[in-house]
């Protein structure tokens, strides 16, 4: 007899156990304010738990978790933009802007992390999804599945991400070594 499908609670528990830290990092990338971030993370967990009521295994658990989390966070960004009229940029714009290099970046991990967060938080939601997935170590195929961007475009965006990161952090890295 085949095993019964996992319940909503079981799926949520598995997702939370596996992706708890990743979801916290994701919330950090979408919201700078610590208080609001806690609310956003809570919203993501609630959305995730509720979403498992309709999980039919059409995609992997990882893709599902990241989609729900990114989409919940993107809604948050859309809402916040209405309130704060915050300007977000695309990877293309970041690539064309002369980068500020800092020799202390690699030496001071906390400072480097702050700069990396600033960079991620300044990006448009879809570009943010790509860079976050890249930093989480996901491959191009998985990034395409989560974001819905074609493999060709994912490759282009990853190329741009590498350029931007190299221009902003690599120089400092050499100094710090």
């Amino acid at each position, binding site marked *: 007899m085949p095993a019964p499908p996992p319940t909503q*609670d079981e799926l*949520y*528990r598995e997702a*939370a156990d596996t992706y*708890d830290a990743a979801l*916290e*990092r994701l919330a*950090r990338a979408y919201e700078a304010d610590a208080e609001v971030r*806690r609310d956003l993370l*809570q919203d993501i*967990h*609630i*959305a*995730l*738990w*509720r*979403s498992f*009521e*309709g*999980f039919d295994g*059409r*995609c992997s658990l990882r893709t*599902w978790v990241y*989609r*729900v989390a*990114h*989409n*919940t966070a*993107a*809604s948050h960004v*859309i809402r916040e933009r209405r309130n704060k009229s915050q300007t977000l940029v695309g990877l293309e714009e970041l690539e064309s802007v002369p980068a500020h290099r800092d020799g202390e970046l*690699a030496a001071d*991990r906390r400072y*480097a*992390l702050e700069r*990396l967060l600033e960079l991620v938080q300044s990006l448009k*939601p*879809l570009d943010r*999804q790509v860079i976050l997935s*890249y*930093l*989480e*170590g996901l*491959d*191009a195929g998985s990034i395409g*599945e*989560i*974001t*819905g*961007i*074609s493999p*060709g*475009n994912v490759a282009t965006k*990853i190329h741009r991400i*590498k350029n931007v*990161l*190299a221009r902003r*952090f*690599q120089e400092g*890295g050499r100094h710090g070594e």
Partner: protein
Amino acid sequence: MANESPPNDRLKSLWQNQPSEGIRMSVDEIRHRAGKFQKKIYRRNAREYVAGLAAVVFIAFEFWRMPDALTRVGMGLMIAGMLYLIWQLHRKGSARSLPAEMGLASGLDFFRRELERQRDLVGSVWSWYLGPLIPGWVVLMVALARINPGHLRHFGLTFAAFNLFAAFAFVFVWKLNQRAARRLQRRIDELNALEGQR
């Protein structure tokens, strides 16, 4: 991404090893908070409906006190327009995506759908927000002009200035929303271009 440069590997490691704030909730707590969240939404919606209905009740009260038939027709139309507006707010507000849909939609699809929903909302502001109030307003103004209270000096001038201001406010809201709709459309076009390159 097999041939990763060492600095990017360091950045990935830096990213993945951030200190955690350790916020974790049990399933029971999640269920409890999901219920509270739902109640909060219901309460917020209820507040909006009550505020809208209070305005309707106020106009309805005035309606009974008005001896002039045309004024009553204008107020009746105003009430109908406001009820239609409240219903539209309810309908459009409940069209938000459900969590399960978020899991089925990729970031691109979800983001585009949200932007399209907003564009349609602000782009059609005439048909669901401003338009329904106009018939009542026009009839009320005609009724007021017909009554033309003798005790008001410069009635014509005041009346014209008031209506000009109201018309200006309507056009201003409409133009503002149109501009927002165009801005949203540009963002949707950007997303479509991303998809078109598949």
